[in-house]
């Protein structure tokens, strides 16, 4: 008798950027919302467009399409709000996408050392091979730490109460 190796299916969100589809682990996706006003202010982080306001929280917005497809999105149908780990802190990042997203359960093949840093793994779905994205390699900011870390909340501002209705704990 042969025993098939047990594989736990993972959930992924498929997102469309131009003509191509990419995936993010569903655990990193908070919500998909209609595009809203982008608030711009002077800054020196060229990859960022500004922030959007979502449920009282200001979320940095970053178009990752150019890095992945070679051109910026011409049509933005939705904004995907994902979590991004900065060293030991979690924060939201907003990513414009050009089509509807789909939730799938599938096995991921982990990336190899030959893959680009932004590739966390590969999925096979509907006859397509789809890259699972590593947001820390596509969006600006410090990379997440792999060291065991204490629990941390969203970045506080010293000397001021930080009201954050969406705060989450990060467990390493």
């Amino acid at each position, binding site marked *: 008798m042969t025993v098939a190796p047990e594989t736990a299916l993972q959930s992924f969100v498929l997102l469309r950027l131009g003509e191509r589809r990419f995936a993010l682990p569903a655990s990193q996706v908070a919500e998909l919302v209609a595009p809203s006003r982008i608030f711009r202010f002077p800054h020196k982080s060229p990859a960022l467009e500004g922030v959007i306001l979502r449920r009282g929280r200001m979320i940095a917005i970053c178009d990752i399409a150019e890095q992945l497809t070679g051109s910026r999105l011409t049509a933005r149908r939705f904004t995907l709000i994902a979590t*991004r780990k900065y060293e030991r802190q979690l924060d939201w990042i907003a990513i414009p996408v050009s089509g509807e997203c789909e939730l799938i359960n599938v096995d991921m093949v982990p990336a190899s050392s030959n893959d680009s840093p932004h590739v966390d793994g590969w999925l096979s779905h509907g006859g397509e091979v789809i890259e699972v994205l590593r947001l820390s390699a596509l969006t600006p*900011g410090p990379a997440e730490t792999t060291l065991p870390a204490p629990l941390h909340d969203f970045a506080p501002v010293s000397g001021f109460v930080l009201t954050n209705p969406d705060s989450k704990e990060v467990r390493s």
Partner: protein
Amino acid sequence: MNFPAAEKSHQPRTEQIILFRVSGQIFAISSASVQEVRSVDNIAGMARDLPESHLKKVRHSIRRGDRTLYIVNAALHFGLQPQPASLVFFLRRTRTALLIDGIEKMTTMTRLQALSHAFQGEERNWYRGLTALDQTVVPVVHPEGFLSLEELTLLEAAQSSADTRSASVENNGAHVQ
């Protein structure tokens, strides 16, 4: 049967802020950080040129008591297209006099959100964070963020050179008399 949880009375901390305009962009600053507001016309006679300043955003200084303050053009500091400034904020506990276009209003903020770590540039020194007011987002500036220690050192050298030059001109004038 479920009962709603008893609400704790949390008094949110508030802060008085001044919303000000620079090249069409609105910024906020804690009103406690602003010692004095003067019109540009009012200080024009007191400002001293700093011809050797290497900082584009600082071209003048002003003497206040025993201290020299540097007049920082806020538009140039933020990389905006400069427009004729009309007001100067003298910032408390700093060496900065800030040239701005105008004041929008005074208001109160109840929330200050830290800049996302996605912002990695100079803005981390410029802003204490962001606040949402009337469904709009306003960056809250850091009063100490307009001049770094390095910039202050450069300005002090430029000031010293300007002082030496003006003393020498005065001495020459005295000899002629």
